[in-house]
């Protein structure tokens, strides 16, 4: 029986792989880099938690409703951004601004309505209430979520939708000339990505059973969401998983060997991000494939 520590580490790896995969649909496949996925994440967490506290709605149902709230937010922010032709870094920054606006609004709201923090009722272990004493249950839940999203990505990547997203990513003008409604397909990517990210928010809320506005809506979570996808390989099915494994293990190792201080893992992430962008802009997965391909070529000639 693995220790709770190992299980926690595994949960975190799968969790960030899941979030990275959710981001990857919009950022990797459709090529629209969002720096503000915290908006969907936080919205999902607060939707299910507030519904649970006030109306006794099971967090499972709250999760779905949070996902829908994410879709609405995604469609709203996507409509504005794409309708007015925001691309590249401008889109990234506008998404960041949306997330920050939400963070400030929730901060004001929460400090007024719940000055002592959100009173999440603790039920011990209760399937209906999405609460478990044993972290192992969370492991299986996030594993299923990750498998589902990976399967979805795999299916989408091979379908017409995926091909259209990649065409838009590579060259929007040419994509439109081939009959692709770029605006609609970008909105679709946004909606799916936002939905899945919001589900991740509920998982996070149920796993830690405390909600802190700055953690849920902050720039840091936006960055961590995109990091595993970018580092592993944006626009690939398994990139987010590879990235999450690499990042979480790296941050654990450094936490053990270096005197811990808050923010150290972020510094490491920053360093890895810089190295990957400069040396392996396609991500670790592609970096691992490259020597393999070179070998295959060498063997075949």
């Amino acid at each position, binding site marked *: 029986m693995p220790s709770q520590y190992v299980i926690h580490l595994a949960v975190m790896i799968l969790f960030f792989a899941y979030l990275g995969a959710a981001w990857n649909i919009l950022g990797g496949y459709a090529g629209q*880099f969002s*720096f503000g996925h915290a908006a969907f994440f936080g919205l999902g967490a607060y939707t299910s938690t507030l519904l649970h506290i006030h109306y006794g709605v099971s967090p499972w149902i709250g999760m779905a409703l949070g996902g829908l709230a994410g879709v609405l937010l995604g469609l709203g922010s996507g409509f*504005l*951004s794409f309708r*007015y032709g*925001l691309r*590249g*870094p*401008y889109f*990234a*920054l*506008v998404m960041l*601004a*949306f997330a*920050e*606006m939400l963070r*400030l*609004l929730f*901060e*004001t709201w929460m400090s007024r309505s719940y000055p002592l923090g959100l009173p999440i009722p603790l039920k011990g272990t209760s399937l209906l209430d999405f609460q478990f004493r044993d972290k192992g249950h969370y492991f299986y839940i996030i594993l299923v979520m990750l498998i589902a999203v990976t399967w979805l990505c795999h299916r989408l990547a091979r379908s017409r939708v995926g091909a259209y997203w990649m065409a838009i990513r590579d060259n929007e003008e040419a994509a439109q000339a081939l009959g692709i409604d770029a605006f609609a397909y970008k909105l679709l990517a946004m909606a799916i990505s936002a939905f899945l990210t919001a589900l991740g928010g509920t998982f996070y809320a149920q796993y830690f059973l405390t909600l802190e506005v700055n953690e849920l809506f902050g*720039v840091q979570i936006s*960055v961590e969401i995109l990091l595993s996808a*970018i580092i592993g390989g944006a626009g690939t099915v398994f990139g987010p998983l590879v990235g999450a494994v690499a990042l979480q293990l790296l941050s654990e190792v450094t936490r053990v060997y270096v005197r811990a*201080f*808050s*923010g*150290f893992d*972020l*510094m490491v*992430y*920053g*360093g*890895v*991000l*810089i190295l990957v*962008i*400069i040396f392996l*802009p396609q991500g670790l997965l592609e970096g691992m494939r490259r020597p393999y391909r070179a070998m295959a070529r060498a063997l075949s000639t």
Partner: protein
Amino acid sequence: MLILQALLSGLLNGGIYSLVAVGLTLIFGVMRIINFAHGSLMMLGMYVSYWLFVLWGVDPYLALIASGSVLFAVGVLIEAVLVSPVLEAPEHDQLLLTLGISLVIENLALFLWKADPRTVTVPYLAVAPMVGGIMISSPRVIAFVVSLALTAVLYVFLKRTDLGKAIRAVSQDREGALTVGINMRRIYALAFGIGCACVGVAGGLVVPFYAVDPYVGGVFVITAFVVVVLGGMGNFGGALLAALIVGLAESVAAVFIPAAMKQVVMYTIFVVVLLFRPQGLFGARRA
């Protein structure tokens, strides 16, 4: 009277914003790079000034020379080692790179100097003269004057000197600049260095009245982004004017709305301008 006080402090803040934003807009104009690390670099400038004062008692205004030069050097170094390899990469890679740089700088600062806010008390600046019932904070006035003076110097440098003209040529027409034999590598390094020096000096200027901590840059960088977008990305004069407008609007708004909402207003301006007037308030609409 409250409004008058707000107008004054808004105008003074606007001066600082102009120096921060001018650095950001210069880097964008020349290299087409949105420098996400701009705020972290300002924080670095603040710490340079802070430590010179605390360790050796260097006058903060003398320390400006140090914070400006240190940040210039840091900028040139960052450009040469990290930015130049990705100049031809997709735009979002460049944004991610500067994000990585800011993560490293911020958390390194956290490691070295801890999260506590640190303040500098300069005895001769403590007196705040009252003029007609309005309190005039002398470090803010000095910051305002120096910022505007430096912005003006930079403007003249870009307009009049050969080097400045070369920088402008690159920002207006890359290919054209290449054909007339301008050394791009040098111009890029210079632009990045100057942009960082601006923010280094700005950091030094605010130290006498603004507590420094590893995350302080975030406060300024958002404002700087709003200013740059409002003034038109890469538009030097626009940034100056927009800085004053933002400074004024922000302090006047603070009289009426809570502080958290003030930032929401800031972000709203940012989003609205990017969506509806991406060329800024003063630019002509592109065809």
